[in-house]
Protein backbone atom coordinates (compact mmCIF):
# COMPACT_ATOMS: atom_id res chain seq x y z
CA UNK A 1 0.00 0.00 0.00
CA UNK A 2 1.26 3.48 -0.92
CA UNK A 3 1.45 6.32 1.60
CA UNK A 4 -1.67 8.48 1.33
CA UNK A 5 0.32 11.65 1.83
CA UNK A 6 3.33 11.47 -0.53
CA UNK A 7 1.88 8.66 -2.67
CA UNK A 8 5.46 7.47 -3.22
CA UNK A 9 6.76 5.45 -0.32
CA UNK A 10 5.26 2.29 1.15
CA UNK A 11 2.70 2.94 3.90
CA UNK A 12 4.00 1.20 7.01
CA UNK A 13 2.23 3.29 9.64
CA UNK A 14 -1.45 2.57 10.02
CA UNK A 15 -3.34 4.99 12.19
CA UNK A 16 -6.87 4.71 13.39
CA UNK A 17 -8.42 7.70 14.99
CA UNK A 18 -11.85 8.65 16.14
CA UNK A 19 -12.71 12.01 14.73
CA UNK A 20 -16.10 13.38 15.53
CA UNK A 21 -17.51 9.97 16.24
CA UNK A 22 -16.27 8.65 12.89
CA UNK A 23 -13.42 6.17 12.71
CA UNK A 24 -10.83 7.56 10.32
CA UNK A 25 -7.95 5.47 9.01
CA UNK A 26 -4.69 6.84 7.74
CA UNK A 27 -1.98 4.87 5.99
CA UNK A 28 1.31 6.71 5.94
CA UNK A 29 4.98 6.11 5.37
CA UNK A 30 7.35 6.66 8.28
CA UNK A 31 8.57 9.99 6.91
CA UNK A 32 5.11 11.50 6.44
CA UNK A 33 3.91 10.02 9.73
CA UNK A 34 6.72 11.67 11.65
CA UNK A 35 6.13 14.95 9.82
CA UNK A 36 2.57 14.75 11.09
CA UNK A 37 3.78 14.17 14.61
CA UNK A 38 2.88 10.49 14.86
CA UNK A 39 6.41 9.51 15.83
CA UNK A 40 6.83 12.31 18.27
CA UNK A 41 7.99 10.11 21.12
CA UNK A 42 6.10 12.45 23.38
CA UNK A 43 3.14 11.65 25.60
CA UNK A 44 1.15 14.24 23.73
CA UNK A 45 -1.42 12.70 21.42
CA UNK A 46 -1.09 14.62 18.17
CA UNK A 47 -4.35 15.02 16.39
CA UNK A 48 -4.15 15.48 12.65
CA UNK A 49 -4.98 19.14 13.04
CA UNK A 50 -3.71 20.25 9.67
CA UNK A 51 -6.12 17.97 7.83
CA UNK A 52 -9.18 17.53 10.02
CA UNK A 53 -9.57 20.74 11.95
CA UNK A 54 -8.40 22.59 8.85
CA UNK A 55 -11.21 21.23 6.71
CA UNK A 56 -13.77 22.06 9.43
CA UNK A 57 -12.36 25.55 9.67
CA UNK A 58 -12.55 26.13 5.93
CA UNK A 59 -16.16 24.98 5.85
CA UNK A 60 -16.98 27.13 8.88
CA UNK A 61 -15.75 30.13 6.96
CA UNK A 62 -17.86 29.43 3.91
CA UNK A 63 -20.90 29.08 6.20
CA UNK A 64 -20.16 32.40 7.80
CA UNK A 65 -19.17 34.42 4.76
CA UNK A 66 -22.69 35.79 4.70
CA UNK A 67 -22.10 37.03 8.22
CA UNK A 68 -18.92 38.85 7.31
CA UNK A 69 -15.95 36.58 8.04
CA UNK A 70 -13.75 35.98 5.03
CA UNK A 71 -10.31 34.48 4.72
CA UNK A 72 -8.92 38.00 4.84
CA UNK A 73 -10.65 38.90 8.12
CA UNK A 74 -7.81 39.92 10.38
CA UNK A 75 -7.43 39.85 14.15
CA UNK A 76 -6.86 43.53 15.04
CA UNK A 77 -4.53 42.59 17.86
CA UNK A 78 -1.99 40.19 16.33
CA UNK A 79 -2.76 40.48 12.61
CA UNK A 80 -3.54 36.80 12.02
CA UNK A 81 -5.98 36.25 9.16
CA UNK A 82 -8.73 33.67 9.23
CA UNK A 83 -7.08 31.80 6.34
CA UNK A 84 -3.80 31.62 8.28
CA UNK A 85 -5.72 30.15 11.17
CA UNK A 86 -7.63 27.68 9.01
CA UNK A 87 -4.32 26.59 7.47
CA UNK A 88 -2.43 25.94 10.71
CA UNK A 89 -5.22 25.39 13.26
CA UNK A 90 -3.38 27.85 15.50
CA UNK A 91 -4.83 31.02 16.98
CA UNK A 92 -2.45 33.99 17.14
CA UNK A 93 -3.43 35.51 20.48
CA UNK A 94 -6.17 35.66 23.10
CA UNK A 95 -7.96 38.38 21.10
CA UNK A 96 -8.31 36.02 18.09
CA UNK A 97 -11.02 34.18 20.00
CA UNK A 98 -13.04 37.42 19.96
CA UNK A 99 -12.21 38.14 16.34
CA UNK A 100 -13.07 34.66 15.01
CA UNK A 101 -15.00 33.22 17.97
CA UNK A 102 -18.48 33.32 16.46
CA UNK A 103 -17.24 31.80 13.19
CA UNK A 104 -15.51 28.88 14.83
CA UNK A 105 -18.13 28.11 17.48
CA UNK A 106 -19.68 25.39 15.30
CA UNK A 107 -16.19 23.89 14.79
CA UNK A 108 -15.49 23.98 18.52
CA UNK A 109 -18.81 22.29 19.08
CA UNK A 110 -17.92 19.58 16.57
CA UNK A 111 -14.58 18.97 18.27
CA UNK A 112 -15.74 19.14 21.90
CA UNK A 113 -19.49 18.58 21.69
CA UNK A 114 -19.92 21.85 23.54
CA UNK A 115 -18.54 25.36 23.62
CA UNK A 116 -18.97 26.38 27.23
CA UNK A 117 -16.19 26.09 29.78
CA UNK A 118 -17.24 24.40 33.02
CA UNK A 119 -13.86 23.98 34.68
CA UNK A 120 -11.40 25.93 36.73
CA UNK A 121 -11.09 29.73 36.51
CA UNK A 122 -7.85 31.62 37.15
CA UNK A 123 -9.57 33.86 39.70
CA UNK A 124 -12.35 31.93 41.43
CA UNK A 125 -13.68 35.14 42.96
CA UNK A 126 -14.46 36.63 39.57
CA UNK A 127 -17.62 34.55 39.21
CA UNK A 128 -19.88 33.33 41.98
CA UNK A 129 -21.53 29.97 41.84
CA UNK A 130 -24.92 31.55 41.21
CA UNK A 131 -23.50 33.48 38.28
CA UNK A 132 -22.14 30.23 36.92
CA UNK A 133 -25.53 28.55 37.21
CA UNK A 134 -27.24 31.54 35.61
CA UNK A 135 -24.99 31.59 32.57
CA UNK A 136 -25.32 27.83 32.28
CA UNK A 137 -29.14 28.02 32.44
CA UNK A 138 -29.19 30.78 29.85
CA UNK A 139 -27.36 28.54 27.45
CA UNK A 140 -29.65 25.64 28.20
CA UNK A 141 -32.58 27.95 27.54
CA UNK A 142 -31.18 28.96 24.15
CA UNK A 143 -30.59 25.33 23.29
CA UNK A 144 -34.11 24.33 24.33
CA UNK A 145 -35.63 27.09 22.22
CA UNK A 146 -33.47 26.13 19.29
CA UNK A 147 -34.71 22.53 19.56
CA UNK A 148 -38.26 23.83 20.00
CA UNK A 149 -38.54 22.13 23.39
CA UNK A 150 -40.80 24.87 24.72
CA UNK A 151 -42.00 23.09 27.82
CA UNK A 152 -38.42 22.59 28.99
CA UNK A 153 -37.59 26.16 28.00
CA UNK A 154 -40.41 27.48 30.18
CA UNK A 155 -39.11 25.52 33.16
CA UNK A 156 -35.59 26.83 32.67
CA UNK A 157 -36.95 30.38 32.29
CA UNK A 158 -38.73 30.07 35.66
CA UNK A 159 -35.58 28.71 37.32
CA UNK A 160 -33.61 31.61 35.87
CA UNK A 161 -36.15 34.15 37.08
CA UNK A 162 -35.95 32.76 40.62
CA UNK A 163 -32.17 32.72 40.62
CA UNK A 164 -31.85 36.23 39.22
CA UNK A 165 -34.36 37.57 41.72
CA UNK A 166 -32.33 35.94 44.52
CA UNK A 167 -29.11 37.35 43.15
CA UNK A 168 -30.38 40.92 43.23
CA UNK A 169 -31.44 40.80 46.85
Amino acid at each position, binding site marked *: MRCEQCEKREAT*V*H*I*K*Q*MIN*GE*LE*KFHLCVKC*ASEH*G*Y*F*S*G*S*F*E*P*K*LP*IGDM*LGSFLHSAMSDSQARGTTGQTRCP*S*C*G*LTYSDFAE*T*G*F*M*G*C*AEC*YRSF*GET*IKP*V*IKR*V*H*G*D*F*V*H*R*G*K*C*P*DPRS*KTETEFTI*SDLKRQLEAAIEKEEFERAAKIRDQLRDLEAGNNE
Partner: protein
Amino acid sequence: MSSYGMSFAHRKSRWMEGQGPSQDVVISSRIRLARNLKDYPFPPMMTEDKAREVLNLGCEISEALNHEGSAEYSWYPLGKLDSMERQVLIEKHLISPQLLRSAAISGVIISRDEAVSIMVNEEDHFRIQCLFSGMDLEAAWNLADRLDSDIAGHVTYAFDDEFGYLTTCPTNLGTGLRGSVMTHLPGLVLTEQLSRIVSGLSKVGAVVRGLYGEGSQAEGSLYQISNHVTLGHSESEIVDNLNSIVSEVVRRERSAREALLNRNRVKLEDRVYRAYGILTNARSIAASEAIELLSLVRLGVVLGILTHIPIAVFPELIVGTRRASIQQKAGAHLDSDQRDLQRANLIRKRLLAE
Protein backbone atom coordinates in the same frame (compact mmCIF):
# COMPACT_ATOMS: atom_id res chain seq x y z
CA MET B 1 26.47 16.42 29.48
CA SER B 2 24.43 19.43 30.54
CA SER B 3 26.02 22.55 31.90
CA TYR B 4 24.05 21.81 35.05
CA GLY B 5 26.12 18.83 36.10
CA MET B 6 25.03 15.22 35.89
CA SER B 7 23.20 14.15 32.75
CA PHE B 8 19.47 13.41 32.97
CA ALA B 9 20.34 9.97 31.56
CA HIS B 10 21.76 8.98 34.95
CA ARG B 11 18.63 9.87 36.91
CA LYS B 12 15.29 8.17 37.27
CA SER B 13 12.08 10.15 36.85
CA ARG B 14 9.25 9.75 39.34
CA TRP B 15 7.15 7.91 36.75
CA MET B 16 9.89 5.31 36.30
CA GLU B 17 9.68 4.06 39.89
CA GLY B 18 7.35 1.15 39.11
CA GLN B 19 5.01 2.02 41.96
CA GLY B 20 1.43 3.12 42.37
CA PRO B 21 -1.96 1.50 41.82
CA SER B 22 -2.53 -1.04 39.03
CA GLN B 23 1.15 -1.12 38.11
CA ASP B 24 0.66 -4.62 36.71
CA VAL B 25 -1.00 -2.87 33.75
CA VAL B 26 -0.41 0.87 34.11
CA ILE B 27 3.10 2.26 33.67
CA SER B 28 2.42 5.95 34.27
CA SER B 29 -0.22 8.67 34.53
CA ARG B 30 0.22 12.18 33.25
CA ILE B 31 -1.75 15.42 33.40
CA ARG B 32 -0.94 18.31 31.10
CA LEU B 33 -2.41 21.81 31.37
CA ALA B 34 -2.04 24.24 28.45
CA ARG B 35 -1.84 27.89 29.51
CA ASN B 36 -1.18 31.16 27.71
CA LEU B 37 -0.49 34.71 28.79
CA LYS B 38 -3.14 37.34 28.18
CA ASP B 39 -0.85 40.08 26.94
CA TYR B 40 1.46 38.16 24.63
CA PRO B 41 0.79 36.76 21.18
CA PHE B 42 0.69 32.94 21.29
CA PRO B 43 4.03 31.24 20.50
CA PRO B 44 3.44 30.72 16.74
CA MET B 45 2.84 34.50 16.33
CA MET B 46 5.46 35.79 18.77
CA THR B 47 8.43 37.92 17.78
CA GLU B 48 11.78 36.80 19.15
CA ASP B 49 11.82 39.72 21.61
CA LYS B 50 8.44 38.76 23.03
CA ALA B 51 9.50 35.11 23.20
CA ARG B 52 12.55 36.13 25.25
CA GLU B 53 10.31 38.06 27.65
CA VAL B 54 8.19 34.94 28.15
CA LEU B 55 11.36 32.92 28.60
CA ASN B 56 12.45 35.32 31.37
CA LEU B 57 9.04 34.88 32.97
CA GLY B 58 9.65 31.12 32.93
CA CYS B 59 12.88 31.64 34.83
CA GLU B 60 11.14 33.94 37.35
CA ILE B 61 8.33 31.43 37.85
CA SER B 62 10.84 28.68 38.47
CA GLU B 63 12.38 30.78 41.26
CA ALA B 64 8.95 31.69 42.66
CA LEU B 65 7.93 28.02 42.83
CA ASN B 66 10.90 27.38 45.11
CA HIS B 67 9.16 28.42 48.31
CA GLU B 68 11.46 29.61 51.10
CA GLY B 69 14.63 29.15 49.10
CA SER B 70 14.22 25.41 48.44
CA ALA B 71 15.85 24.00 45.33
CA GLU B 72 12.87 21.90 44.32
CA TYR B 73 12.57 23.38 40.81
CA SER B 74 15.33 24.12 38.31
CA TRP B 75 15.20 26.20 35.16
CA TYR B 76 16.72 24.89 31.93
CA PRO B 77 16.78 27.18 28.90
CA LEU B 78 17.01 24.67 26.03
CA GLY B 79 19.73 26.74 24.39
CA LYS B 80 22.00 25.80 27.29
CA LEU B 81 21.51 22.05 26.83
CA ASP B 82 23.38 20.16 24.13
CA SER B 83 21.39 18.25 21.52
CA MET B 84 22.02 14.85 23.11
CA GLU B 85 20.77 16.05 26.48
CA ARG B 86 17.64 17.53 24.88
CA GLN B 87 16.97 14.15 23.27
CA VAL B 88 17.31 12.43 26.66
CA LEU B 89 14.60 14.75 28.02
CA ILE B 90 12.33 13.65 25.16
CA GLU B 91 13.08 9.97 25.80
CA LYS B 92 12.14 10.49 29.45
CA HIS B 93 8.92 12.22 28.34
CA LEU B 94 9.89 15.40 30.19
CA ILE B 95 9.68 17.57 27.08
CA SER B 96 8.04 17.19 23.68
CA PRO B 97 9.90 17.16 20.36
CA GLN B 98 7.93 20.29 19.42
CA LEU B 99 9.79 22.22 22.12
CA LEU B 100 13.02 21.68 20.16
CA ARG B 101 11.70 23.46 17.09
CA SER B 102 12.40 26.75 18.81
CA ALA B 103 15.18 25.62 21.14
CA ALA B 104 16.83 29.06 21.22
CA ILE B 105 13.72 30.63 22.73
CA SER B 106 12.25 27.80 24.78
CA GLY B 107 12.91 26.33 28.18
CA VAL B 108 11.65 23.95 30.80
CA ILE B 109 11.23 23.97 34.57
CA ILE B 110 11.89 20.51 36.03
CA SER B 111 11.33 19.42 39.61
CA ARG B 112 14.01 17.52 41.49
CA ASP B 113 12.08 14.24 41.35
CA GLU B 114 11.19 14.91 37.68
CA ALA B 115 7.48 14.51 38.42
CA VAL B 116 6.92 18.06 37.18
CA SER B 117 8.04 19.63 33.93
CA ILE B 118 6.73 22.99 32.78
CA MET B 119 7.56 23.69 29.16
CA VAL B 120 7.85 27.34 28.17
CA ASN B 121 7.19 28.50 24.60
CA GLU B 122 6.02 25.22 23.20
CA GLU B 123 2.72 25.39 21.25
CA ASP B 124 1.36 27.34 24.24
CA HIS B 125 3.33 29.70 26.51
CA PHE B 126 3.19 27.18 29.36
CA ARG B 127 2.58 23.46 29.34
CA ILE B 128 2.37 22.22 32.93
CA GLN B 129 2.97 18.48 33.08
CA CYS B 130 2.81 16.17 36.09
CA LEU B 131 3.87 12.60 35.56
CA PHE B 132 3.44 9.84 38.14
CA SER B 133 4.07 6.13 38.31
CA GLY B 134 1.12 3.72 38.07
CA MET B 135 -2.56 4.66 37.86
CA ASP B 136 -2.57 7.96 39.70
CA LEU B 137 -4.29 10.64 37.62
CA GLU B 138 -5.73 12.29 40.76
CA ALA B 139 -2.31 12.85 42.29
CA ALA B 140 -1.07 14.25 38.98
CA TRP B 141 -4.12 16.51 38.65
CA ASN B 142 -3.89 17.75 42.25
CA LEU B 143 -0.27 18.72 41.78
CA ALA B 144 -0.88 20.31 38.37
CA ASP B 145 -3.83 22.25 39.83
CA ARG B 146 -1.71 23.58 42.69
CA LEU B 147 1.17 24.60 40.38
CA ASP B 148 -1.28 26.23 37.99
CA SER B 149 -2.80 28.32 40.80
CA ASP B 150 0.70 29.25 42.00
CA ILE B 151 1.68 30.42 38.52
CA ALA B 152 -1.62 32.31 38.14
CA GLY B 153 -0.50 34.37 41.15
CA HIS B 154 2.46 35.67 39.11
CA VAL B 155 1.03 36.15 35.62
CA THR B 156 -2.29 36.92 33.94
CA TYR B 157 -3.58 33.99 31.93
CA ALA B 158 -5.54 34.30 28.70
CA PHE B 159 -9.00 33.27 29.86
CA ASP B 160 -12.54 33.76 28.63
CA ASP B 161 -15.67 33.11 30.67
CA GLU B 162 -17.23 31.19 27.84
CA PHE B 163 -14.28 29.40 26.18
CA GLY B 164 -12.21 28.91 29.34
CA TYR B 165 -8.41 28.89 29.06
CA LEU B 166 -7.52 30.16 25.61
CA THR B 167 -5.11 27.80 23.90
CA THR B 168 -3.18 28.16 20.67
CA CYS B 169 -5.05 25.23 19.17
CA PRO B 170 -8.82 25.11 19.78
CA THR B 171 -8.59 21.34 20.37
CA ASN B 172 -7.16 22.13 23.84
CA LEU B 173 -9.63 24.89 24.69
CA GLY B 174 -11.51 25.09 27.99
CA THR B 175 -9.64 23.24 30.70
CA GLY B 176 -6.50 22.85 28.58
CA LEU B 177 -6.28 19.47 30.28
CA ARG B 178 -5.02 16.34 28.62
CA GLY B 179 -4.65 13.24 30.76
CA SER B 180 -2.61 10.35 29.37
CA VAL B 181 -2.23 6.94 30.89
CA MET B 182 0.53 4.66 29.60
CA THR B 183 -0.67 1.07 29.73
CA HIS B 184 1.00 -2.26 29.01
CA LEU B 185 -1.51 -4.47 27.19
CA PRO B 186 0.23 -7.67 26.03
CA GLY B 187 -2.77 -9.79 27.08
CA LEU B 188 -5.14 -7.89 24.80
CA VAL B 189 -2.59 -7.92 21.97
CA LEU B 190 -1.91 -11.67 22.25
CA THR B 191 -5.62 -12.51 22.45
CA GLU B 192 -6.24 -10.18 19.47
CA GLN B 193 -8.84 -8.09 21.26
CA LEU B 194 -7.01 -4.81 21.08
CA SER B 195 -8.32 -3.24 17.88
CA ARG B 196 -11.91 -3.86 18.97
CA ILE B 197 -11.24 -2.21 22.30
CA VAL B 198 -9.45 0.72 20.69
CA SER B 199 -12.44 1.51 18.51
CA GLY B 200 -14.74 1.07 21.51
CA LEU B 201 -12.69 3.54 23.52
CA SER B 202 -12.89 6.20 20.86
CA LYS B 203 -16.66 6.11 21.16
CA VAL B 204 -16.41 7.10 24.82
CA GLY B 205 -14.11 10.05 24.22
CA ALA B 206 -10.68 8.46 24.55
CA VAL B 207 -7.79 8.56 22.10
CA VAL B 208 -5.46 5.56 22.00
CA ARG B 209 -1.94 5.67 20.62
CA GLY B 210 1.17 3.56 20.82
CA LEU B 211 4.22 4.72 22.72
CA TYR B 212 5.50 6.17 19.47
CA GLY B 213 2.20 6.67 17.73
CA GLU B 214 1.52 3.56 15.68
CA GLY B 215 -2.10 2.60 15.38
CA SER B 216 -2.94 -0.98 16.14
CA GLN B 217 0.32 -2.72 16.99
CA ALA B 218 2.31 -0.49 19.31
CA GLU B 219 5.91 -1.17 20.24
CA GLY B 220 6.17 -3.45 23.24
CA SER B 221 2.36 -3.54 23.61
CA LEU B 222 2.57 -0.08 25.20
CA TYR B 223 -0.46 2.11 24.60
CA GLN B 224 -1.37 5.51 25.89
CA ILE B 225 -4.98 6.38 26.55
CA SER B 226 -5.95 10.07 26.64
CA ASN B 227 -9.08 12.18 26.86
CA HIS B 228 -10.18 13.77 23.60
CA VAL B 229 -12.47 16.54 24.82
CA THR B 230 -11.14 19.42 26.93
CA LEU B 231 -14.13 21.81 26.89
CA GLY B 232 -17.57 21.58 28.47
CA HIS B 233 -16.59 19.40 31.44
CA SER B 234 -14.84 20.22 34.68
CA GLU B 235 -11.32 18.93 35.28
CA SER B 236 -12.54 16.38 37.82
CA GLU B 237 -15.16 15.09 35.38
CA ILE B 238 -12.49 14.65 32.70
CA VAL B 239 -10.17 12.90 35.15
CA ASP B 240 -12.99 10.68 36.50
CA ASN B 241 -14.09 9.74 33.03
CA LEU B 242 -10.56 8.83 31.92
CA ASN B 243 -10.10 6.91 35.17
CA SER B 244 -13.15 4.77 34.59
CA ILE B 245 -12.19 4.16 30.95
CA VAL B 246 -8.69 3.03 31.96
CA SER B 247 -10.07 0.92 34.84
CA GLU B 248 -12.19 -0.97 32.34
CA VAL B 249 -9.15 -1.53 30.09
CA VAL B 250 -7.17 -2.74 33.12
CA ARG B 251 -9.95 -5.18 33.99
CA ARG B 252 -10.03 -6.58 30.45
CA GLU B 253 -6.26 -6.83 30.24
CA ARG B 254 -6.19 -8.80 33.48
CA SER B 255 -8.85 -11.22 32.30
CA ALA B 256 -7.05 -11.62 28.94
CA ARG B 257 -3.87 -12.55 30.84
CA GLU B 258 -5.89 -14.96 32.98
CA ALA B 259 -7.33 -16.54 29.83
CA LEU B 260 -3.86 -16.91 28.30
CA LEU B 261 -2.63 -18.70 31.41
CA ASN B 262 -5.65 -20.97 31.54
CA ARG B 263 -5.58 -21.79 27.86
CA ASN B 264 -1.93 -22.78 27.63
CA ARG B 265 0.26 -21.93 30.57
CA VAL B 266 3.31 -23.77 29.24
CA LYS B 267 3.18 -21.96 25.92
CA LEU B 268 3.08 -18.57 27.63
CA GLU B 269 5.87 -19.55 30.04
CA ASP B 270 7.91 -20.69 27.06
CA ARG B 271 7.57 -17.31 25.34
CA VAL B 272 8.51 -15.46 28.52
CA TYR B 273 11.56 -17.66 29.21
CA ARG B 274 12.72 -17.45 25.60
CA ALA B 275 12.53 -13.65 25.76
CA TYR B 276 14.43 -13.70 29.06
CA GLY B 277 16.96 -16.09 27.55
CA ILE B 278 17.69 -13.81 24.61
CA LEU B 279 17.90 -10.66 26.74
CA THR B 280 20.29 -12.26 29.22
CA ASN B 281 22.54 -13.71 26.50
CA ALA B 282 22.42 -11.49 23.42
CA ARG B 283 25.55 -9.49 22.60
CA SER B 284 23.85 -7.13 20.16
CA ILE B 285 20.21 -6.11 20.03
CA ALA B 286 18.19 -3.52 18.11
CA ALA B 287 15.83 -1.20 19.99
CA SER B 288 12.70 -2.66 18.39
CA GLU B 289 13.61 -6.25 19.30
CA ALA B 290 14.61 -5.21 22.80
CA ILE B 291 11.29 -3.53 23.55
CA GLU B 292 9.23 -6.51 22.34
CA LEU B 293 11.25 -8.92 24.48
CA LEU B 294 11.21 -6.61 27.50
CA SER B 295 7.43 -6.48 27.12
CA LEU B 296 7.20 -10.28 27.32
CA VAL B 297 9.54 -10.43 30.31
CA ARG B 298 7.47 -7.74 32.06
CA LEU B 299 4.36 -9.84 31.45
CA GLY B 300 6.18 -12.81 32.95
CA VAL B 301 7.07 -10.77 36.02
CA VAL B 302 3.56 -9.52 36.73
CA LEU B 303 2.13 -13.02 36.20
CA GLY B 304 4.61 -14.48 38.66
CA ILE B 305 6.37 -16.61 36.03
CA LEU B 306 9.63 -14.76 36.71
CA THR B 307 9.75 -13.87 40.38
CA HIS B 308 13.15 -12.28 40.95
CA ILE B 309 12.91 -9.17 38.76
CA PRO B 310 11.45 -5.93 40.19
CA ILE B 311 8.97 -4.20 37.91
CA ALA B 312 10.85 -0.88 38.08
CA VAL B 313 13.53 -2.43 35.84
CA PHE B 314 11.29 -2.01 32.78
CA PRO B 315 10.80 1.76 32.52
CA GLU B 316 14.46 2.11 33.40
CA LEU B 317 15.52 -0.18 30.55
CA ILE B 318 12.94 1.03 28.03
CA VAL B 319 14.10 4.65 28.44
CA GLY B 320 17.72 3.85 29.22
CA THR B 321 18.30 1.92 26.00
CA ARG B 322 16.97 4.63 23.67
CA ARG B 323 19.31 6.32 21.25
CA ALA B 324 20.37 9.37 23.27
CA SER B 325 20.14 7.91 26.77
CA ILE B 326 22.37 5.01 25.82
CA GLN B 327 25.05 7.36 24.46
CA GLN B 328 24.88 9.74 27.42
CA LYS B 329 25.29 6.78 29.77
CA ALA B 330 28.26 5.54 27.78
CA GLY B 331 29.66 9.07 27.69
CA ALA B 332 30.41 8.77 23.98
CA HIS B 333 28.86 9.12 20.55
CA LEU B 334 28.00 5.66 19.28
CA ASP B 335 26.90 4.57 15.81
CA SER B 336 23.95 2.27 15.32
CA ASP B 337 25.99 -0.98 15.56
CA GLN B 338 27.80 0.23 18.66
CA ARG B 339 24.48 1.18 20.23
CA ASP B 340 23.13 -2.34 19.62
CA LEU B 341 26.17 -3.78 21.44
CA GLN B 342 25.83 -1.30 24.27
CA ARG B 343 22.08 -1.95 24.53
CA ALA B 344 22.57 -5.72 24.78
CA ASN B 345 25.24 -5.18 27.47
CA LEU B 346 23.07 -2.83 29.50
CA ILE B 347 20.02 -5.09 29.45
CA ARG B 348 21.97 -8.29 30.10
CA LYS B 349 23.86 -6.83 33.06
CA ARG B 350 20.77 -5.21 34.53
CA LEU B 351 18.65 -8.36 34.34
CA LEU B 352 21.43 -10.61 35.64
CA ALA B 353 22.08 -8.24 38.54
CA GLU B 354 18.69 -9.20 39.98
